[in-house]
C-alpha cells in the first residue's frame, strides 16, 4: 500500500514542491472538455473575436468564465491569439500568389472573348509595329509647314508708317532744325 507521501511523489498527487506549472497542469487536466453550463460554451466565431482582441458585449462575462473553466477553450483561445500574425502573413502571401499577372489577365480576357490564337499573334504583331513606328518618330522634329515661315519671313508693315526722316507720326519734325528750341526761352541749345 502506498502512503500519502508516496502518492505525492508518484504523480498521482501534487508533488512535494508543487511548483506553479504543476498546479497548472493539474488544473488544466481537471478542467478538460467544455464547461457544464451551455452559456459558457463559446462558438468558433466568439473565440476568434476574443483572439482578435474584441469584447463580446453582454456575452463577455460568460465567455470569460467559459475560458477560465475549460482548458479546451483556453487552449484554443491561446493558440488563436498566438497564430493571428502568422495567419495574416499567410493571407498576404496567398493574396500575392493568387493575384493574376498581366499576362494571365490578358490570356483570360482573350479566352473569354473567344479569339483564336492566330488573332492574338496578329494583334501582338500590329501593336509591335505601332510601337516601333512611335519610337522611331523624333518628338523634336517639327512638320515641314511649320518651318516655312522661318525660312521666308515676310515684312509686314506694323504701324503703317515709315521711320524715314520724313516720318510725321508724332506731328513733329525729326530733321535737324536750323531753328533754335524755343520751349523755355531757347536756352537749351548749346
Amino acid at each position: 500500500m502506498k502512503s500519502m507521501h508516496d502518492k505525492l511523489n508518484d504523480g498521482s498527487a501534487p508533488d512535494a514542491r508543487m511548483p506553479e506549472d504543476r498546479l497548472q497542469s493539474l488544473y488544466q487536466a481537471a478542467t478538460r472538455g467544455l464547461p457544464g453550463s451551455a452559456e459558457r460554451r463559446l462558438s468558433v466565431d466568439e473565440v476568434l473575436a476574443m483572439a482578435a482582441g474584441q469584447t463580446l458585449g453582454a456575452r463577455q462575462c460568460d465567455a470569460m468564465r467559459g475560458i477560465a473553466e475549460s482548458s479546451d477553450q483556453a487552449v484554443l483561445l491561446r493558440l488563436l491569439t498566438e497564430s493571428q500574425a502568422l495567419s495574416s502573413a499567410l493571407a498576404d502571401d496567398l493574396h500575392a500568389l493568387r493575384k493574376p499577372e498581366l499576362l494571365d489577365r490578358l490570356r483570360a480576357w482573350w479566352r473569354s472573348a473567344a479569339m483564336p490564337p492566330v488573332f492574338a499573334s496578329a494583334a501582338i504583331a500590329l501593336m509591335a509595329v505601332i510601337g516601333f513606328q512611335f519610337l522611331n518618330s523624333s518628338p523634336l522634329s517639327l512638320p515641314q509647314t511649320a518651318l516655312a515661315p522661318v525660312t521666308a519671313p515676310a515684312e509686314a508693315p506694323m504701324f503703317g508708317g515709315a521711320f524715314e526722316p520724313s516720318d510725321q507720326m508724332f506731328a513733329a519734325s525729326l530733321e535737324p532744325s536750323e531753328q533754335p528750341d524755343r520751349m523755355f526761352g531757347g536756352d537749351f541749345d548749346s
Partner: protein
Amino acid sequence: MQDHAEPSSNAESRLSSRHHARLQEVLIRYGKRLRMLVETHCGRDRGLDADDIEQEVRIKLWKMLESDKTLDFPASYIQKVVATTVIDALRRAEVRHAESLEPDVEPAVDPSFAGPMQPDRHAGHGNWGQLLLRCIAELPERRRMPVQLALQGFKADEIASMTGCSVAAAQQLSYRGIEDLKIRLKELGADEIDA
C-alpha cells in the same frame, strides 16, 4: 485550332505547376510555424498531435485553394480553419482520454490514509484535480478569475486585457490567489506542498 491549343496548354501547365510549387512552399512554411505554436500551447499531455493538426490545416487550405481559384483568403478564414481543426483534435483527444481512463475508474483505496479530504479514496489524479477545483471555489471572488486564467496559462497582461484591470492588479491578484491556494491545499492534506 488543335495545333495551337497544345503548346498553349503545355505552357499553362508549366505555369500552373510552378504556381502550385510556390503555393505549396508557402503552405509548408506556414504549417511548420503552426506546428511549433501547437506544440507550445497545447502540449503533449493534452494528447494533441501537432503534426496531425498541421497536416490537416494544410490539406484543408489546399483543397479550398484548389476548389475556388478566384477566392481570396482573409486571415480570419485561415484562423477559422485552424480553430475547427483544433476543436476536432481536442474532441478526438477527449474521447481517447475518456477511453483510456475506463479501466482505472475503480479507485485505489488506501485505508492507511485518513486525511481531511481523503483524496486517495477516489481516482488518484482526478481526485486531486477535484480538490484543487474546490479550493479555487473557496477563493475570494476577485482573486478567483485571475487565478483560474493564470492556471490556464495566460500571462498577467493577457489576464488584464480580458478582465479589464491593470497588469499590476492582475499580477497581484493571481499571485496572491495562487499562494492562498497552495496554503489551502497544504491544509487539506497535501502537506508537503511548498508555498
